[in-house]
C-alpha cells in the first residue's frame, strides 16, 4: 500500500485526467488553447482573493475563471484587436496582477510556486472532493453537449444552419472549461494547466480514427503520464506537476513521430 500522500496524488491526477483530456480535445479542435491559458493564469487572482477574504481557494479561483471566461467571450466579439493578441495580453496582465496580489496579501505565507506549477503531493481530502465532484459535473456536462459541440468544432456555420443550439453549447463549454481549470490548478498549477488539457489530446490524435477514440485515448495517456510523472518525481526528486507535463511531452513526441517520418 503506497503512502497516503501518494494515493491522494494518484487519485487526483487520474480524476483530473479523466475529464481534462476529453475536454482538451475540444480545446484543440476549437483552437482555444490561448483562451484556456488566459483563464488559467487569471485564476491566480482568485488565489489572492481567496486568501484576502479567507474563502475556499478552489471556489474563489472558480469565481475568477468564470468571470474571466465571460469577459473573454464578450471581448471576442470586438474586432479592433486580433483575439489571440488580446488573449496573450490578458493572460499576462492577469498573471502579473495575480502574482502581485498574492504577494501583497497578509496572513499565512503563500506558496506562490505551488500555485504556478502545482503541488500534487500536497493534495488534501477537500481538494479530492473538488476534483471528483467538480470533475463529475464537468464530464456529465461535456457528454450532454458532445454532439452539438462536435458539430460546431467541425463547421460552425453548418451546425448553426442545421439548427444546433450554438450559443448555448458554446456557453456550457466555456463554463466547463472554467470549472476544470479551477480544479486543475492545485495539481499542475496556473502555468501548466493548459498543457495538461491539450497535450494528451495532441498525443492521442495520430492514434485515433473517431472523436470519441481520441477523447478516450487522451484520458488514458493523461493517466499514464500522471503515474509516470509521479514515479519520476519520487525517484529523482523532481517537482510533480512539471514532471507530469514532461512525460506528456515525451508521449506526444513518440505518438507524432511515425507520421512525421512518413511525410518525408
Amino acid at each position, binding site marked *: 500500500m503506497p503512502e497516503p500522500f501518494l494515493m491522494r496524488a494518484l487519485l487526483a491526477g487520474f480524476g483530473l485526467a479523466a475529464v481534462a483530456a476529453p475536454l482538451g480535445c475540444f480545446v*484543440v*479542435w476549437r483552437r482555444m488553447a490561448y483562451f484556456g491559458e488566459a483563464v488559467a493564469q487569471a485564476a491566480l487572482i482568485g488565489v489572492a482573493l481567496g486568501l484576502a477574504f479567507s474563502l475556499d481557494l478552489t471556489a474563489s479561483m472558480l469565481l475568477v475563471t468564470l468571470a474571466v471566461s465571460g469577459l473573454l467571450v464578450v471581448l471576442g466579439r470586438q474586432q479592433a484587436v486580433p483575439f489571440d493578441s488580446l488573449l496573450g495580453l490578458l493572460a499576462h496582465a492577469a498573471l502579473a496582477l495575480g502574482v502581485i496580489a498574492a504577494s501583497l496579501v497578509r496572513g499565512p505565507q503563500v506558496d506562490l510556486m505551488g500555485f504556478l506549477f502545482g503541488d500534487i503531493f500536497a493534495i488534501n481530502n477537500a481538494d479530492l472532493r473538488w476534483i471528483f465532484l467538480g470533475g463529475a459535473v464537468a464530464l456529465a456536462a461535456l457528454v450532454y453537449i458532445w*454532439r452539438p459541440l*462536435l*458539430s460546431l*468544432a*467541425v*463547421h460552425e*456555420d*453548418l*451546425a*448553426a*444552419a*442545421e439548427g444546433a443550439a450554438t450559443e448555448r453549447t458554446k456557453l456550457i463549454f466555456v463554463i466547463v472549461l472554467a470549472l476544470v481549470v479551477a480544479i486543475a490548478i492545485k495539481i499542475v498549477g496556473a502555468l501548466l494547466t493548459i498543457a495538461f488539457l491539450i497535450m494528451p489530446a495532441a498525443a492521442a*490524435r495520430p492514434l*485515433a*480514427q*473517431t*472523436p470519441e*477514440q*481520441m477523447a478516450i485515448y487522451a484520458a488514458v495517456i493523461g493517466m499514464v503520464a500522471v503515474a509516470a510523472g509521479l514515479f519520476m518525481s519520487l525517484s529523482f526528486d523532481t517537482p510533480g506537476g512539471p514532471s507530469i507535463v514532461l512525460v506528456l511531452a515525451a508521449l506526444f513526441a513518440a505518438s507524432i513521430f511515425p507520421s512525421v517520418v512518413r511525410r518525408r
Partner: protein
Amino acid sequence: MRSPDGLEQPVQHGEQRVSACAHDHAGHVHEHMHDHHRAHPNAQREHNATALISARNLMLARGGRTILADIDIDISPREIVTVIGPNGAGKTTLVRALLGLEPVDQGSIRRKPGLVTGYAPQRFDVDRAIPLTVSRFVALGRRASPDELAHVLKDVGAGPLAERQLSELSGGELQRVVLARALVRTPDLLVLDEPVRGVDYAGEAELYTLIGRLRTERGFGVLLVSHDLHVVMAQSDRVICLNRHVCCSGVPQSVAQHPEYARLFGPQAARAFGLYHHQHDHRHDLAGEPRPPAHGHGPDTGV
C-alpha cells in the same frame, strides 16, 4: 477601395451601379428596380404563402456599405432556383441571410413552419485536428441508421468512401460528402452555395444532373448559388441574377438573353451562351470565369 488609377472610390459606388440596371424589358423576365426607381417604394409586398422560404425587401449593410438591397425571393416546393452573379454580388451573403446565419438590417424572411433545410456551404475546410470518418461526418447532420448513411452516400456516388477519414478526401469527393450530409436530413429545402468549387468541368455538370435527379425523386426545393449560368441552366427552373440587388430573374433562357445578364457577365458570356448551351464547352471551367472589365464590381464580399 481603390480604382485602377489609384483614386479613392466613393463608398457607395456599388449602389450607383445598381441603379443603372433595369432599362430593358425582354420576354417574361421580371424587372426589379432599385428603390428610387420604384413607383411605390413603400408598398409592402406580401410573402408567398405556399413558398418554402419567402423573403421580402431584404437589406444588409456592413461597415457602411450596402451589401444587399431590396431583395425579394421565394423558393417553392420542388423548384430549383439558381442565384447567379459576379464576385462580390452578395450571393453568399444572401444565402446566409436566408439561413439565418447573417442578421438582416431590413426586410423579413418567412420560413414554412417546420422547414428542414440541408446546407452545403461554399467553403469547407477540413480540420485535420479532428479524426472523423465520412459516415460519422454525415451522421452529424442527423442521427441516421447505418443503412440510411450507406444509402445516402451511395446516392451521391460516395458509397466506397464511408469509412475513409474526411481529411483524406479530394475536393470533389468532399463536395459529394457535404451534399450527403445535407441530404441525410431529408430536407424540404436544399441550399447549395457554389457546390462545385474546385471540381473539374465534367464533375460539375455531373453534380448538377445529380441534384436535378434527386429533386425529382425526393421533391425538395433547391436554392443553388453559381457564378456560371451555363452549367446550371439545364437543371434550373428559375434564375435570379444578383448584383447587390436583383437585376433580373426568370426562366434560364430569358435571363441568358437579358441585357442585364450581358452587362454583368460581358457580351462574350452572353454570346457564348447562345452558341454553347446545347453542348458544353471547356471555356467555362471555373478558372475562366468571365469578368467585365468595364464594371469593377468591388471586392469579393463573399463571407
